[in-house]
């Protein structure tokens, strides 16, 4: 095991609560709660649907346990900023406001899915939300993030690209090359390392020479905003706000979010059932560092009795997710040859096609 929840309480960044920018309003906190319970409900429902074989396929990577990492950091963005992530992308999609119905339909491979059933769990995206997608090759999205940030620099805009990357990907060539490139071109990327302790099944300390992952930024002359207890949405938000402000003006920034995944790498992993030490570790995280409970405690300590509002968010989450399942299950599967082939290429008058031209796809 890499970090105990107790260690996290000691090691993470000291947050300066004095700055007004870092203090989320009551409305913000309540909305974060709404987002987090929606994600949890969505993910646990996905897990159940997978067990029941109503969601099929091999890959389903759940964000349960990670909620505060995405919610707290994306709260620091404005609408014109960009977001990109890897395959653990459901929570990111929901935070950005993608329709849970389209997301659930994508899980089930339906035509009404956000990617028309072509992408599945790992390939959610929404152009309307500046969400550039979830990507399935570890580290593969990192240079794409740099390219998206380059577009902003190229046109003189100050939008930033928030990029989520797992701890395992920090050992991959894409990570090194992309961070280096972002440094020399001063690209406004916030590289958020979501360190949940494991790259698939391998502990961080068995995979990385430098176990303080945010310090990898030093190798490229990138400013690190340190390690954050990412079970606490307020701490995440405070640090992300500073990093976003910095990136807008200067260039890349790195933050390490220490978090924990409640459902293993993907749903097909049964590590918590198979090993006692793993189930004990999970139990400890859930008991001591549960992100939804931490936020709830914070809201209640600041604003007293908000139970009614919170209960409404919880009930809404259940209803919204149930509706998304009903919508997805009632939707049509893609089944035609046209469905299979379309959108391989952009149709173009410049492409010369005959009946005997092969390899051009169809419009």
């Amino acid at each position: 095991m890499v970090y105990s929840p107790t260690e996290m309480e000691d090691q993470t960044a000291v947050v300066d609560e004095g700055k007004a920018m870092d203090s989320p309003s009551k409305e913000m906190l309540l909305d974060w709660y709404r987002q987090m319970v929606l994600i949890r409900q969505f993910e646990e429902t996905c897990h159940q649907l997978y067990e029941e074989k109503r969601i099929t396929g091999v890959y389903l990577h759940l964000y349960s346990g990670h909620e505060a990492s995405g919610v707290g950091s994306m709260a620091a963005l404005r609408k014109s900023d960009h977001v990109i992530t890897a395959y653990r992308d459901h929570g990111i999609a929901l935070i950005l406001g993608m329709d849970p119905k389209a997301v659930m339909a994508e899980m089930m491979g339906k035509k009404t899915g956000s990617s028309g059933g072509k992408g599945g769990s790992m390939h959610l995206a929404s152009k309307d939300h500046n969400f550039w997608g979830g990507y399935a090759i570890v580290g593969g999205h990192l240079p794409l993030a740099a390219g998206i940030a380059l577009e902003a620099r190229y046109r003189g805009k100050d939008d930033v690209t928030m990029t989520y990357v797992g701890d395992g990907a920090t050992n991959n060539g894409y990570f090194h090359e992309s961070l280096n490139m972002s440094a020399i071109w001063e690209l406004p990327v916030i590289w958020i390392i979501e360190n949940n302790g494991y790259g698939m099944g391998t502990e961080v300390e068995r995979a990385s020479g430098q176990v303080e992952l945010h310090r990898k930024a030093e190798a490229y002359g990138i400013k690190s905003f340190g390690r954050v207890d990412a079970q606490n949405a307020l701490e995440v938000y405070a640090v992300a706000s500073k990093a976003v402000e910095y990136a807008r003006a200067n260039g890349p920034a790195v933050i390490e979010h220490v978090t924990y995944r409640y459902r293993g790498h993907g749903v097909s992993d049964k590590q918590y059932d198979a090993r006692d030490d793993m189930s004990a570790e999970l139990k400890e995280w859930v008991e001591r560092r549960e992100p939804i409970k931490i936020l709830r405690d914070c809201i209640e300590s600041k604003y007293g009795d908000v139970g009614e509002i919170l209960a409404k968010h919880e009930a809404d989450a259940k209803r919204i997710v149930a509706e998304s399942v009903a919508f997805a299950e009632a939707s049509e599967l893609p089944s035609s040859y046209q469905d299979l082939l379309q959108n391989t290429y952009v149709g173009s008058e410049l492409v010369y096609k005959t009946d005997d031209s092969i390899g051009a796809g169809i419009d």
Partner: protein
Amino acid sequence: MAVRNIAMREAIRRALREEMQRDENVFVMGEEVAYWQGTHRVTRGFLEEFGERRVRDTPISEMAIGGLAVGAAMAGLRPVAEFMTINFAFLALDAIANHAAKVRYFFDGMFKVPLVYRAASGWGNQATASHSHAPEPIFAHFPGIFVGCPSNSLDAYGMLKTSIRDDNPVLFSESIALYPKPSPMPDDLDEDYLIPIGKGDIKRQGADVTLVAYARGVDWALQAARQLARDGVEAEVIDLRWLRPLDMALVYESFKKTNRCVIVEESLPMYSFGGEIAANLQERMFDYMDAPIKRVAAEDVPLPYSKDIELLALPNAQKVVDAVKEIL
């Protein structure tokens, strides 16, 4: 109309420069493209004309070059990313095959990826094994990307312009051996001279045998055709120009007339361009086939350093002539 002989590198430079002048979204990036004016001198003078914003030196980071171009293209720019040689593009194969080619598909048409990867290709001058590849078929394997391989200056000009203007990703392979080779280009060429993606070209007419080639293979095929003509054999030389999409209609038309075919390529023989063309011919043109289809490719070995055995490994016009004579 005045016509002058122009080296292929000059034609490529002219096309790229005009497209950068025409469209502010077009920019070039790659190793040594700016301050050192391009390893193959294609981007000579670009930094001075377009500045650092649009002419971007990269570190030696092929994975990042490959992927960064995808992100920039999705976001609305039109990157022309140079791999100093196509050998180094192997390092970017994941970005090319998994992202450039697939992003549009797995998000069901949400994004366009209007990028061009330029790469200098081929063997020669004892460059040794790891720097001596013509691996275009590897890239053409993947649906979602187009692959262009010009054989002369005018084609390179029109094909590169089309590639830059098209909304799909294109791998544009430039044969190093052809960079200095002059071929005719009209002086007053229209800046909108575009060669459609996927359209092949008949480089020489003939009724006795069809030679199918691309890039440098076209040179060998044309040399072989001249040699065969002295023996009274008229070869038709088809330059497919694009490996994806493949203009098989052009090959079929010719084959119906000649009933014989030799496929010429600079690349390796296994799982190859030659295999692809031959397979399609036997499936669609079986009734027209009068002889086995022959393939001339590199020998199935890594390329050695020493000159004589390097040349032994490689295709040439004589090997094409010999193959034709076997099936006449």
